[in-house]
């Protein structure tokens, strides 16, 4: 009986925290309806007529997608490197160090590096910086997922005659898939939110972040920016609830975590 109450209380707590975290989403939703006497959808239309903002959206989307794909792959290789190379602590330390340097110094250092190499700022320079920033996060998530993975399964695979690659692809990968998906989501989020480092290597491009930061500082935001944020919120919610419904039919090994009764 008391465990049921504890359970209920736990969910009240979770809902409370969610409400707290969602609270700052309410003002943008309200502001997007305009600052006049009556709410209007006008700004949702104006948003698309702002060429700088639209181009920034495209750039950010491209960067987010590329980072969300590349960073987890590199992080996976990195996790395997930590596992297989003898100096595992040193490797781990090396790959975590980008976390510890303040963003502005990182941006400046990268900008100098590109300058020395003679590389002009472009999507690729921004991408390099975004991947570098996301890599340690993705790595830690994948390592955490791997830490719960019991190598006994791999041994079983070898006994059945699989080579290293097949064992990895068929046995380990599906079980750490939540970790990789999480790493991808994190990388996407980090890329979308990255401002300071990007500002120094952006060259002729704007990302949504740098554009909003600059506008926020110098001329103030207008409801079309809030409209963009509201659209993103709605889009994400749709994806979150639609995606599992679409994927619900599939019931693969990936749905089962070790020895749980999902």
């Amino acid at each position, binding site marked *: 009986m008391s465990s049921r109450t504890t359970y209920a209380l736990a969910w009240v707590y979770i809902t409370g925290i969610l409400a707290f975290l969602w609270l700052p989403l309410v003002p943008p939703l309200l502001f997007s309806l305009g600052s006049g006497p009556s709410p209007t959808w006008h700004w949702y239309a104006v948003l698309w007529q702002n060429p*700088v903002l639209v181009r920034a959206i495209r750039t950010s989307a491209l960067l987010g997608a590329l980072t969300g794909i590349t960073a987890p792959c590199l992080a996976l290789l990195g996790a395997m490197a930590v596992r297989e190379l003898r100096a595992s602590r040193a490797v781990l330390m090396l790959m975590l160090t980008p976390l510890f340097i303040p963003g502005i110094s990182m941006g400046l250092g990268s900008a*100098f590096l590109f300058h020395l190499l003679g590389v002009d700022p472009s999507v690729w320079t921004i991408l390099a910086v975004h991947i570098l920033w996301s890599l340690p996060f993705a790595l830690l998530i994948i390592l955490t997922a791997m830490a719960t993975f019991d190598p006994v399964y791999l041994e079983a695979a070898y006994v059945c005659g699989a080579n290293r690659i097949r064992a990895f692809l068929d046995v380990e990968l599906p079980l750490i898939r939540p970790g990789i998906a999480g790493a991808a989501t994190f990388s996407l989020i980090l890329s979308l939110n990255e401002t300071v480092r990007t500002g120094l290597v952006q060259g002729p491009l704007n990302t949504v972040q740098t554009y909003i930061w600059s506008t926020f500082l110098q001329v103030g935001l207008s409801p079309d920016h809030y409209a963009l944020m509201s659209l993103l919120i709605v889009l994400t919610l749709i994806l979150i609830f639609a995606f599992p419904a679409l994927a619900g039919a599939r019931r693969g090994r990936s749905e089962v975590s070790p020895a749980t009764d999902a």
Partner: protein
Amino acid sequence: MMNEWSGHFRRRDLIRMVAAGAAGAGVASASRSLGFGLAEAAMKGTVNFADIGVGDPGGDWSKFTQATGWGVNLVAFGNAPSQILNVLVSGGGTQVYDIANIVGGMQKPLVENNLIEAIDTSRLPNWRGDTYIHDFLAPGTPGFEFIGYKEKVYGVPTVLQGDSFGYLPDVTGHLDSYEALFNPKWKGYVALEDNFTTAGQKTALYLAKNNLASIKNPADMTPSEIKTVVDFLIEKKKEGQFRVIWTSFEQAVDLLVRREVYVMDCWEPMVFVARKKGVNAEYARPREGYLLWAMAAYIVKNPKRPPEREAAAYGLLDFILGPWYGAKITLLRGYMTNPGAAAYAKSHPSEFNAQDAAEVTRITDNVRSKFQLGGTWQDRWPTHVNDYEAEWARFKAAPSK
């Protein structure tokens, strides 16, 4: 065996097709994302215009494109000196940006670092007719510091303005001196800008003009004078005079609109936006005078820039000095631009309705009167700028209780 082979073959082909398709889609979407769509391909090219947000005429550069055949790519970046200098120096900005439009007065570090070119004003037909330049920014006057260095012109003035402070007259009544910022009556309801060349200089102006401290030139102070100003500010901070030191346009407007503070050191456009949001806010006309400044558009130094692009850049600068741009920016941002703006707005009702045209005239007359009243010219790069920064850091680190 055959099955395996044909399976292999089919798989490899499939992979190749998918890869090619992905690459093609990737390149196409990348180039579209970068904005190199068909429309731009029809133009001769684009001028890269780095701007802090003030110079954006709502994204509409069509008049410029029609006249010259060049497009404009506006890149938004911050106004902080480090942003600009670091972007230009280390970020390869000299290769990428053609024009940088920021608050002027940065010629010294920019020229000494070989980042901007001197401007040949003979290539700007609108320059000669711009009376503001001759009246307020003439060589030998402090105003010239915003666009020139060592007798040469480096910047084209895009906007002009005089700063003081904003307040809510319903609460405070009519205010006409910077003393309001430090008046214990409004303790806890005052905000300052986080900028030693505005808030710091206004404080210095106040102290100097009211004989509360001996400061020879509020625009360019000596280390001991700076220390005096900051000591004064720290004392006020300890007394709880200030609610917040604001850092962004959005924050400042919000403070007034929600009546979080009653007196605020800020820029006039913030008062305009607050009024549009229905709040009765005034911008003070202090007896000590205004803090005068101008924005300048610089040509970024790039020896590899082809002559057509250079010509296009000059064309853009001339366009900026033109009446349509001036009227648009005055209307959108609330700053004074060039003499032709007000007349243009009035005589082109198809582009500017009567209300907007009246607004342009009102803003222009208002700012012009500020320049006539005078005050002190903001110095963005004072001689002892390092001491300014160190002392300001001391102000920020000081405890507030």
